[in-house]
């Protein structure tokens, strides 16, 4: 009866501890979030094509037409979209410089923590060229790394090689297809994984929760919950191991070896013999093992036309 009561009280304590931890986890995960920095999307007025290179200098109508297409796509997707055509001064930018530039240019144009993206088509003369897409807000969630890479590959068909001349029709085709690709690849349901922007001045997490977009400096609640649960599991397991190991030390261990009660002088053998009764030899053939070497042909790896970096950049030739 007493044992039953003890088991019951232990069970109640365990349930209490688990419930307490669950409450604590809930509090940590859902009530310790930093401020939502998300600003969203206002209108498509700032979207368009910025021709710093001057490739459409002789045909401003075409540039305006392309900007209109971009603005329409922007309005349709509720995303700020800017396509930037750099001049030759950015020819010596490193890939990192390009990424910094696109991120800063986006922020300068549309503001931080807004929904949108900036597509940097590298026609500066840099070889290899480094294309980049700087994303912000919802765009970070919708256009994942894989999608951006696919877009780069798809546009590779329309863009000239790094070393070749660039004509306005190259850009026209690229912009039209880029907008088309943005539309076809748009799917909010894809954005289940939070996006972590480690390159920003203050690293932020972008994620959806309950149909709303959040940009916070702290981790998303579900991730925080997982961290809490994992930490508690590690802590609990450690505590359990320490408990069991220590408990094991509180056991009776000593036992005297009875051999101490037998002295050599008190042993008197009548027969203490080891007699050889038989001897035989067995032999086995040693199997020779032949190793199958074989040369490994080294197939040359085909180069990508887009030597895209891990982030959003890509090179076209």
């Amino acid at each position: 009866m007493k044992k039953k009561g003890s088991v019951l009280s232990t069970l109640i304590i365990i349930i209490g501890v688990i419930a307490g931890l669950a409450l604590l986890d809930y509090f940590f995960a859902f009530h310790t979030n930093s401020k939502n920095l998300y600003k969203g999307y206002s209108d498509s007025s700032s979207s368009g094509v910025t021709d710093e290179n001057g490739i459409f200098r002789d045909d401003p109508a075409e540039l305006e037409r392309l900007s209109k297409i971009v603005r329409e796509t922007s309005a349709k997707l509720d995303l700020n979209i800017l396509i930037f055509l750099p001049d030759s001064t950015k020819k010596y930018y490193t890939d990192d410089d390009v990424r910094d530039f696109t991120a800063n240019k986006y922020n300068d144009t549309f503001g931080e923590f807004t929904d949108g993206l900036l597509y940097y088509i590298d026609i500066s003369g840099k070889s290899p060229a480094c294309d980049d897409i700087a994303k912000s807000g919802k765009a970070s969630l919708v256009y994942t790394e894989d999608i951006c890479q696919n877009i780069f590959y798809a546009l590779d068909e329309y863009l000239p090689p790094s070393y070749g001349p660039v004509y306005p029709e190259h850009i026209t085709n690229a912009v039209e297809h880029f907008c088309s690709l943005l539309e076809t690849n748009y799917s909010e349901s894809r954005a289940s994984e939070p996006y972590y922007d480690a390159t920003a001045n203050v690293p932020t997490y972008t994620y959806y929760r309950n149909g709303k977009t959040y940009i916070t400096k702290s981790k998303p609640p579900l991730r925080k919950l997982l961290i809490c649960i994992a930490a508690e599991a590690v802590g609990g397991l450690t505590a359990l191991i320490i408990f069991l190991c220590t408990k094991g030390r509180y056991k009776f261990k000593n036992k005297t070896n009875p051999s101490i009660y037998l002295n050599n002088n008190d042993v008197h053998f009548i027969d203490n013999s080891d007699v050889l009764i038989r001897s035989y030899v067995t032999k086995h053939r040693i199997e020779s093992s032949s190793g199958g070497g074989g040369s490994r042909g080294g197939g040359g790896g085909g180069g990508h036309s887009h030597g895209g970096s891990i982030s959003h950049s890509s090179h076209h030739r």
Partner: protein
Amino acid sequence: MESVEYKCPNCNADLKFNPTSQKLECEYCLSAFTVDEIKKLCATTENSIPQEAVQVQEDFANHTHLYRCKSCGAEIMADDQLTATFCYYCHNPVILAGKMGGEFKPDKVIGFKLTRDNAIACFKKWVGKRWFVPKDFKSQQQLEKLTGLYVPFWLADCHVNVDVRAIGKKLRHWVSGNYSYTETKEFRITRVGGMLTKGIPADGETKIEDLLMEAIEPYDYRELKDFSMSYLSGFYADKYDVDKSAVFPRIRVRSNQACSAYIRSTISGYSGIIPSSEQYNISNTDWRYTLLPVWFMSYKYKDKIYEFAINGQTGKLAGTPPLSKGRLGLLCAAIGAALSAIIIVVGGGIF
């Protein structure tokens, strides 16, 4: 608190056995007497020392009493002057039950060499390494429960006829050409003879765990003395309640273990041994009923009694330390919580 008292021939105060000097000493006039001296001087007081064996047993019976604990039923041997205050097993008061029969007079005794302070030091050293014992387990009050107790032991000298037969194999490998050769030599191993295991002890007290007593072995039997009540002065003593026939199975097992270990040590150099037969027959056993010194302590914790014993001669300690699961649990929980907190903070679980 003495179980047996001897009066000082000079001042008539109580004499106490001092383990350090191995003498009976008077705290008032500072007289000191060896056991042999007191045997002569107190011949009229301690009537258990006459020359004739019959007289010895009768006198021992006349001057020795059994106290029985109402709670646990333990029987405690003491002389007729003793007023016991508590049972050293369960710490409950004991009452006078009856006189002890002469057959309980031990043959031999080893006097206490470890003083109470030595025993406390041993215990403190042992318990110092254990952090999670209950707090009051280390308390002064608990240390006061340490009781010097002469535990009844049966010492058995077993004459064992040994007959062990086995087949031993020696292997030798070599390679020649495309062949690997193995030479196997088989030996008939025979070990036949007699062995004498001397002084295997078995406590004759049901109230004390056998394993606990085995754990504080061995005693140095070179210090065995003929029994005299004077050794008991200042200590408790117990009479056996398990006779030698009842302890014999334990003795036999330990004797066989000793012989078997010895036989194994004589068989070496073989790759494999296949036992054919192994017989250990005890043909004769010589018994000595002996009182051996043990500092004994029991501790009740959560309805469980924990017993500790210290060899009163060598200071070897054994026992199961009580574990305060609450304290250990709290520390483990604190470590687990700290670790979790570090992981949560470092992993960004909060911020």
